[in-house]
Each structure stands twice: as C-alpha cells, then as structure tokens.
C-alpha cells in the first residue's frame, strides 16, 4: 500500500479512534487512580492483636500513670491510666507523646565514646565491655589517688531506687557529692526543716481546699503533677472555690483564676506578709493552732536570753497594707479584702514556687507563704499543706564503708549544701559551676549524670558549659541525646522510659504518698542497658566493699527485693500507696519546742535586721532598663527532656515561629523601644544576648520582658533542636544568702530592634 499523506492521516485517526474505543485508556486511568490511593511511599500501618500495658511515665516531673495501646509488639498510643493517684486516667502532653521519644531518632542506640571536642557532638560507638571498663578504670584510679571525693553524681530527683543506687554508689565510693537538680521542692524541704523540724516533702490537699492563694505558681502550667492540677482546677470551678493568682503577667493560671492580681515581680514575700498583717491585726488567724501549736508568734527569748520580737509584732510593725501596696503594686484595699476572705475560708491554702517551679526562689518567700498557712492553721489538715515523710520503702542495709569512703565522705560538699553556711540545704547544684570555674583544678574529676540535664537546665548555661569543660571525665547515662550527654566523654545509654522497670515515687505535690511502677512496654529496641544494672555492675567492677554493698544480681532483683511484698500489688495495679495518716498537731512538729515555729532559729535575727525586701535581680538599670522574667508554658517542656514532635506541633505561633522565639512585652514597653508585633529584636542581659521576635501582649506589666522557658534545645531531633533560645543562657543564679538556693526570678535586660 502506498503511504501518502491521506492514508497516513487516516491511519493516525484510526489509531486514535481505536485506542479511545478500546478499554486500554480507561483501564490505565483506573489503574493510575488506584496507584494514587496506594502510593508505596505512604505507609500502611500493620494490623495486629491489640492489648494495653499499664505503666508510669517518667518524662514529666509529675509521673503520669499511663496505659499504652499496643498492636502486636508495637506501641501505638499512650493514654492515662484510670485510677492512678493524681493523674487518674489523664496524662500530660509530654507523657501522651511519649511514644515519639521511644521510636524517635534521638534515642541513643549504643554506648558512645567522645571522639570530637567537648560538646561538638562527635561520638564513636563502642562495646559495653569497653565502656564499662573505661569507667571502672577511671574510678579506680581516682580512688587509689585518694581523690574519691571528686566523684560527682547529678540526678534529677533524690527519690526512687535508681537515684538511691547512685547515692549509695557515691557513698561507698567515698564522695559526698551526690546532687539533685534545683526545684521549688528544695525550698519546701528547707522550710519544713526550719519551721516544722521535719525531713519532709510537701503535699497539698488541693482537692479539699476552698480558697487558693497562689504566689506566682503556674498551677495549670506544670506546677506539681500537671494532670492532677488540671483536674483540681476543674474541681475548683465546679465547687466555686476562689483562686487568686499573684503574678506580674497574665499567665494561663492567672486567666483561669477567679482573680488575677498583678504584682511587681519579686515582691511575693512582702505581699504574703502584708496579708499576714491584715489577718493578725483583725484577729482572723486560727487561735487554736497559733496559740497551742506554734512558737514565736509572740515575743520570745533567744539563746542569749534577749527578748526577740515575735512574728506578730514584726509583721504588724513593718507590713501594713499601705507599705505593702507601695512595694507590691497591689492596692491596699485588695490586700485587705483577699486577706479577710482567705482567713475566713474553711480550708484556705497558700502556695508558692514560681511557674512550674524550675527555680526555687528565696527562702523568705517560702517562709512568708508557709507562715500564712500556719496563721490559718491549715497544716496537716484536710485541704491544707501536708508534710509527707520522705519515701522510706527503700530500706537497704547501711553499707560498710572502708577508710577511703569514710574519709572522702566526710569532706565538705563541693556545692556547699549541708555545710555550716547552708545547713538546711541538701543540694545546691546551681552553685557547682562557679565552684569548678573558680578552682584551679576541678573539684569534680569524674561526673556521673543520670536523668538530669544540667547543661540545659541550670542557670547561666555558658558558665555551666565552661565548668563542664574543666571536668576531666563526664559519664552520661542518658537514653536520649541531650545537651549534657553532648558534653560527655562516655555515654552509657539507659533504656528508654517505655523499655524498663523503675519505681516512681509520684506524683509531685499529692497529699498522700504513692509509689508507681514503670515497666517495660516494649523490649529494648537498641543496645542499651538499664542504668540500675550499669550502676550495680560498675560497683561490682570496683570490687571489694563496693561490690558487697550492691548484693543484687541485677536491677530487677534489687527492685523486687526493695519493694518486697508490695511488688505484687504494683505489678497488678501499677502502684501502691503506703499507709499514711498525718499526725495530729500535737505530734506533728519536730522542732525543739515540738511546735510550728513562725520565726525559725537561724533566720530570726537576719529577718529582724534586714527586713524582707524584694530580691534584687542582677544587672544595672541604666544599661538594662527592662527586666526579663522567664515563664513556663504548659506546651513547652522545660525540664531535662524536651518536647516530643507532637508537643512541638502544639506550640502557638506567638511563642515560636520557625526558629525564632517570641518574647512578650507590654505595648507601652514595645512602643518606647520602637518595637512592633513580630519584629526581630535583640534581647540582652548581663549574661548574654539573643535574637528574638517581639510579641506585644497586653497581659504583662510594663517594663518586663517575658521569655518562655524550654526552647533553644541544643540537641535532640530536628523537630525541637535549635528552635528559639534557652532562657537559662540569659539568666544567672542569685544566691539567697540564707538558704543558698537560687533566688533569681529574673534579670535586668534590654530589648532593642535588631
């Protein structure tokens, strides 16, 4: 056939018509659409058998009781565990998103040895045997050199078998330097010691309280156990319990409160004493408690036989509402009104610990606030503040100490806690960096860090880093990469929080003691080792008396034996609550006079002379005309562990946008500095400066710059790392001269357009 143009065209048309009429194009179209519905790069979750595992999450300080939904061997979702004390079926954001920490990319997978410079983040995997012998060798060497006291341990909290294993390790090794991270609980601990003569932890019967005075505590922003506090808050709403929030900034807690009372920052103690003034003056205090169970309310004789003014007269002399109003900025009419309402309530309770309580604050504040509770007699009573005994279920036999241990153990602590200067303190870890930096040779030669993240959480992180640079050997037991692990020489990774057994004395602030049991939800994913096992094995490797002090085969045996008869209950229920009935007032206090002491021994004179004035913050007002205050936000974890991706996703765009943190300033403050919403600015403090964005917020006192805590993580997964600024980098500690605690509530600052 001759192919001319005509037949070619016809052929083309024929082919076109033919293929349209054939099923081929339709079939292809259909196949393509099916392909788009099953793209191979869009994961299809595998189905399987569903079951639940109960556990306790250790990601937050509150210790949320959780149940984990599993499909076959995969953990799918975390929910709250019904009936768990405090959290009762609920959990905080961090714990709810905990599975992302389990499967997330920053889970450390194997022991690591530093190969780059300190903090550079270059590590090489090594075997467990190698890692363990390296640590053991270091420790042996130090001990033979007679420098056992230069071993330091930093953990987040003191209680539970794991911190106690570290404490015991340090003790038998011969070092007093077992340290915990600062928190408002340190303030309460000291207050119980000096006002009630007790070694105790605070419990707050908030569910039964009927009037809440909060001196800047972020009641719904991470103070105590978050889910418990949310539920308490809802209960208050249902019962119409008044909540008064004193705070310079309209926080979420202030917004939820019945009444937000803006106050000059740092003046909380004065305000508390002003309230006390009204209560005393108008005879509204609890007569029975004050007259029969307290001391030094009235004038008293000191050891030298000199008469000292009592609490009553001191308060009446100095803190009349007009003066207090001037210092705090709270109108005196309001002070009077609140004081009356507070005193007339059945079970009023006053609380302190700023924000989520990451910084203790001045002991005066704790004293003034606790004195208010004393005035209304709401101590160890329904709806009041309880002094709970420290967890005592860990009853290991006293270890036998050899000469080195005794000698080393008797040396004064590096952080100064428990020394003559700060007798009531048990840990002052924020003082450690300065001590190291000021010394020629670091007083800490080997530092073991578990569960804590001092390089992120301690104030003035630059100084902390400098101090850590000076420590010859840092061993981290982190399960996830954090700022401190980055500074370590060796990382002996612990199992993740869903991969191990652990006792969790929890939840914080609950008025009954509870011990929860965290248990493995999934088998460990990587070549990690339970930190308890690591410590026990290290002790065994040290040999001699040290090995004998750790008689357990492994951690699980240690835990089972420690919990003894309770183990079964805990396995079944997930927790157990030791019997506790608070003693009556006549037996409750263990001060020398067996009374609640309004003016503690050591503090009497100091207060008398100096009075209580707001804690001054660092920096000169001319270079730094504003004042920076950190604040806690409930969607940002400010503790050792940062936000999981899901929680990052909940952060508002007025706190973080892309990599920029927002600081909050009042429109007037912004106007004065020529700043507008969203502009880039430089926030500088005596400790450093940072690039920030401005959020103009009506709910903040003019002159302040509020910075959210918990951002600016220098490590971790891509979802949280390098976003925003770590406020701890911009603020330094201010030492409370009496307690040694960090009393800083802010720092002077300046905010200028970038």
């Amino acid at each position, binding site marked *: 056939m001759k192919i001319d143009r005509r037949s070619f065209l016809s052929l083309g048309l024929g082919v076109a018509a033919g293929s349209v009429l054939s099923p081929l194009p339709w079939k292809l179209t259909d196949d393509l659409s099916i392909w788009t519905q099953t*793209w191979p790069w869009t994961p299809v979750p595998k189905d399987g058998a569903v079951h639940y595992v109960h556990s306790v999450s250790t990601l937050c300080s509150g210790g949320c009781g959780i149940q984990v939904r599993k499909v076959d061997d995969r953990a799918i979702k975390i929910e709250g565990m019904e009936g768990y004390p405090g959290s009762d079926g609920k959990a905080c954001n961090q714990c709810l998103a905990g599975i992302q920490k389990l499967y997330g990319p920053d889970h450390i997978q194997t022991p690591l040895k530093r190969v780059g410079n300190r903090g550079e983040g270059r590590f090489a995997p090594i075997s467990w045997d190698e890692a363990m012998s390296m640590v053991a060798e270091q420790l042996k060497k130090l001990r033979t050199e007679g420098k056992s006291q230069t071993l330091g341990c930093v953990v987040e909290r003191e209680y539970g078998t794991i911190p106690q294993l570290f404490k015991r390790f340090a003790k038998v090794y011969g070092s007093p330097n077992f340290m915990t991270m600062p928190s408002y609980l340190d303030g309460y601990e000291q207050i119980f010691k000096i006002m009630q003569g007790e070694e105790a932890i605070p419990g707050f019967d908030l569910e039964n309280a009927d009037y809440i005075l909060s001196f800047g505590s972020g009641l719904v922003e991470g103070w105590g156990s978050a889910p418990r506090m949310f*539920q308490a808050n809802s209960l208050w709403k249902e019962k119409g319990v008044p909540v008064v929030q004193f705070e310079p900034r309209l926080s979420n807690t202030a917004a939820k409160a019945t009444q937000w009372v803006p106050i000059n920052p740092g003046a909380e103690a004065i305000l508390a004493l002003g309230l006390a003034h009204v209560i005393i003056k108008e005879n509204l205090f609890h007569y029975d408690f004050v007259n029969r169970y307290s001391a030094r309310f009235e004038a008293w004789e000191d050891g030298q036989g000199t008469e000292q003014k009592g609490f009553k007269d001191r308060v009446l002399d100095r803190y009349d509402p007009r003066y207090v109003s001037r210092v705090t900025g709270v109108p005196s009419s309001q002070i009077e009104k609140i004081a009356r309402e507070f005193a007339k309530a059945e079970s009023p309770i006053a609380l302190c610990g700023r924000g989520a309580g990451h910084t203790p604050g001045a002991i005066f504040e704790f004293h003034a606030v606790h004195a208010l509770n004393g005035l209304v007699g709401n101590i160890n009573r329904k709806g009041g503040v309880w002094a709970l005994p420290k967890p005592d279920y860990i009853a290991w036999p006293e270890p036998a100490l050899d000469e080195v241990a005794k000698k080393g153990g008797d040396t004064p602590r590096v952080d100064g806690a428990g020394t003559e200067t700060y007798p009531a303190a048990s840990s002052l870890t924020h003082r450690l960096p300065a001590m190291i930096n000021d010394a020629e040779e670091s007083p800490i030669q080997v530092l073991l860090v578990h569960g804590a993240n001092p390089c992120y959480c301690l104030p003035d992180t630059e100084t902390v880093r400098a101090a850590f640079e000076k420590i010859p050997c840092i061993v981290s037991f982190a399960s996830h990469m954090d700022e401190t692990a980055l500074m370590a020489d060796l990382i002996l990774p612990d199992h993740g929080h869903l991969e191990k057994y652990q006792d969790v004395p929890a939840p914080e602030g609950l008025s009954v003691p509870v011990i929860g049991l965290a248990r493995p939800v999934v088998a460990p994913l990587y070549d990690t080792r339970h930190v308890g096992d690591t410590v026990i094995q290290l002790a065994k490797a040290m040999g001699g008396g040290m090995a004998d002090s750790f008689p357990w085969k492994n951690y699980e045996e240690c835990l089972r034996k420690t919990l003894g008869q309770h183990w079964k209950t805990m396995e079944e229920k997930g927790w157990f609550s030791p019997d506790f009935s608070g003693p009556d007032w006549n037996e409750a206090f263990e001060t020398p006079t067996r009374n609640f002491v309004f003016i503690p021994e050591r503090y009497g004179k100091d207060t008398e002379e100096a009075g209580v004035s707001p804690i001054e913050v660092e920096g000169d007002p001319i270079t730094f005309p504003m004042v920076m205050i950190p604040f806690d936000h409930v969607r940002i974890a400010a503790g050792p562990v940062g936000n999981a991706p899901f929680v990052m996703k909940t952060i508002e765009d007025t706190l973080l946008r892309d990599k920029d943190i927002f600081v909050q300033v009042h429109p007037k403050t912004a106007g004065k500095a020529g700043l507008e919403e969203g502009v880039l600015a430089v926030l500088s403090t005596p400790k450093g400066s940072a690039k920030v964005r401005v959020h103009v917020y009506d709910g903040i006192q003019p002159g302040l710059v509020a910075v959210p805590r918990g951002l600016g993580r220098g490590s971790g997964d891509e979802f949280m790392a390098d976003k925003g600024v770590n406020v701890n980098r911009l603020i330094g500690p201010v030492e409370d001269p009496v307690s040694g605690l960090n009393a800083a509530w802010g720092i002077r600052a300046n905010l200028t357009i970038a």
Partner: protein
Amino acid sequence: MKKAADHTKPKRYGMVIDLDKCTGCGACMVACFAENNIPFKKDESEKLLSITWMRVYKLSNKKKYPDTDICYLPRPCMHCEGHEGHSPCVSVCPATVTDYSTETGIVSQIYTRCFGCRYCMAACPYHARYFNWWDPVWPKGMEKMLSPDVSVRMRGVVEKCSFCYHRYQRAKDKAYVEGRTDVEEEEYQTACTQACPARAITFGDLNNPKHKVYELKQDPHAFRLLERLGTNPKVYYVSSREWVRKSGDNYLKHEEPGHIATKH
C-alpha cells in the same frame, strides 16, 4: 445523605466543651495526633500549614493591662448539621467525598476519593479542614507508632476530625458481638475527650437524654460558634464569661448574644 440504619434511633453525636475548665494545655491535640496518625514536619510553627484536627485557639478580650483576659477554645470539626444535613462542606464537595450521616451525625471524609480541590476548605468557616500539602513522612523507625485503625492520608487530599469514627465502629462491633444493638455512652468517646486532663470536653449523643451532653448543652451559658451562619454545629461551648460567649459569633454593635434569633 445516608439514611439512618433501621433498628437504632438516629444519633447526633456532639460535644460540649467547658471553656471555664479548659486550660489550653493542648493534651487534646496531642491525643488526637497520636490517635489519628497525624503527620508532623520539622517546622509546625506556620499554623496555616499545620494539620491539627483539633486546634486550640487563644481568645483575648482585647482589653488593656491589667483588665486583659484570655481564654482557650478547642476547635474540633463542628460536624455541622446545617439544614437537614446540608453542612457547609458536604454540599459543596464535588465528588461526594464528605457526607453527613443521619445515623450518627458525623461528617465523614473518604480520603481515597478526595482529589484535593479544597472547595470544602473554602466552605468551612471554622478552618477545621486541612490539606496534605506534603507527603506524610515519618522518620525511620517512627512509622512503628502508626495506628492501624486510621489510614494514613496521602499527599494532596483534605482531612479533618472524624470524631474518632473508628472508635464508634469498634464500639459497635463490640456491641454486636455482645448481642446489643446500641453503643453505650462510655463505650464511644473521642480521643480528645478521653485525654482532656481538665475534663472540659464531654462527648455523647445530643439526642439522648441519658447522655451528659444532653443536659450540658442546655446550660444558659452554652453557645455554638457562628450559629448565625446557619451551620448548625454540634459542638457546644460553655463559658461563664460574657466576652467569651460574645467571641463565639459576630454581632453588630447594638446586638447582644442570646437575643439573636438564629437559624435552626
């Protein structure tokens, strides 16, 4: 509109959210993300590109210091009933992807049918609908956390809150096995309701006098968002604060909330 199944009474699942209790903690969002396989990107701070079936808005009374006040408002899909099931989004979807069930009152979404025209997003005044601008990606290993109950959405489709419909199915299956025709109130609760630590969210059948929501929605302080548009949403809010109630809808200067006749 699907007709109600024969043997059970038609339900209208809905929520009552107590804004006095809500603390804005965001646990509802986190629980929702985990329950529904919501993807997450490196940067989620651009909220207009961030998939949050449940989103907690922050409201302000816009007053000056110290009279400033704020309130949080969790916003799931409102599962609007509109007029006889004509919710704003259902009637506009060209491919019958989204539907109002007269059996449950739930507005469904068939991801594999959606071709991503986003008309429904334009129709929804609550911004409850989200588009998958990117392929969902889980870092290596993290796909282990995906729930088999909810399919993962592919790039290019719209998604939204389903009132955890898979939980309803699960509850119904259970009821069926146990020889019951109906699902009990506590058997079917959404993930956000379950997670809300303030117990601010109550979920149930608005038609059923035995369910808590039935009573709660009649609170004199109850309101719904943008009622005046006639969307007829099934999520109620309760607030004791007047300015919050007023923030729930648009009012002319002389108008007062509660005195406006609304459609439906």
